[in-house]
């Protein structure tokens, strides 16, 4: 019994490791030279969307996030059996974007578009935080708020949805805590 449990543990561990290796190998075409370009990232997202479409799931058209100028934002429209959906979205993600997206997005200089920056500044100020007036991105606003991310994120998302009604349902915001 103990032996069976050990074998099960080893198989699980190997399975987990192979998933990581698979992702790295599958995305090596963009990761191989150590730099992911915008074109490669956009191609990776297109391939992810095509992978989902091939399985019968539609997506909205990706748009560049006005919050950081780098992340592509889009929705994949849920449907069908949840178990089949979960298998598909995990497989497509692992094969196409899971490593390329952070490699590209985190290497970029994040800049919030000007109208959103102004709106977020107003919102954050109205919550009692003092700004230097030079904040360019979510990281700067969080720093100005003394590291309090949530009130800043609420401003960022609320203002972004107000100014850009075409934003998808699923919105990702990255920030560094200094």
């Amino acid at each position: 019994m103990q032996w069976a449990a050990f074998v099960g543990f080893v198989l699980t561990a190997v399975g987990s490791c192979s998933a990581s290796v698979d992702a790295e190998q599958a995305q090596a075409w963009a990761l191989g030279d150590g730099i992911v370009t915008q074109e490669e990232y956009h191609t990776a997202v297109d391939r992810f969307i095509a992978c989902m479409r091939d399985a019968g799931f539609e997506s909205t058209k990706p748009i560049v996030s006005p919050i950081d100028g780098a992340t592509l934002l889009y929705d994949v429209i849920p449907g069908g059996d949840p178990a089949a959906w979960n298998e598909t979205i995990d497989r497509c993600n692992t094969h196409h974007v899971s490593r390329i997206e952070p490699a590209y997005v985190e290497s970029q200089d994040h800049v919030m578009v000007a109208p959103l920056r102004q709106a977020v500044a107003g919102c954050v100020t109205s919550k009692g935080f003092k700004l230097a007036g030079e904040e360019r991105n979510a990281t700067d606003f969080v720093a100005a708020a003394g590291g309090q991310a949530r009130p800043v994120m609420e401003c960022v998302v609320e203002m972004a949805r107000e100014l850009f009604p075409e934003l998808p349902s699923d919105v990702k915001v990255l920030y560094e805590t200094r």
Partner: protein
Amino acid sequence: MKLGIRARAGVILATTGFMIALLPSQASALGDNRIVYRSCGSNYVASGFNGTNYWAQTDRVSGTCAGRFSLNFEMSDGRWMARTYYNRYSAYRTISPTFGNVAYGLHWGCDNCNVTKT
């Protein structure tokens, strides 16, 4: 045993209240916000519903943990959205109720770490 109108109304009210208390509320599964400790460091994990959008957040608090963390949503029908990964950034992710209600925020401290639900 016969109950009067007031007594019967009281029983109905009490029963209704008890049944409502048993129903899962929209926010009841979310919001188990906490710091998760590992031997190499700690992360703050949180999620919630602000009346308009569901949100989930992961912050590095301390330590020198290697590997990426990742963030996702589990919907009330068991469906997961696409898991997103972060090498060095903290992350906030939000989703409107367009495609259903969110049951949990999902957080991983590394690719193969156990999932933490909030």
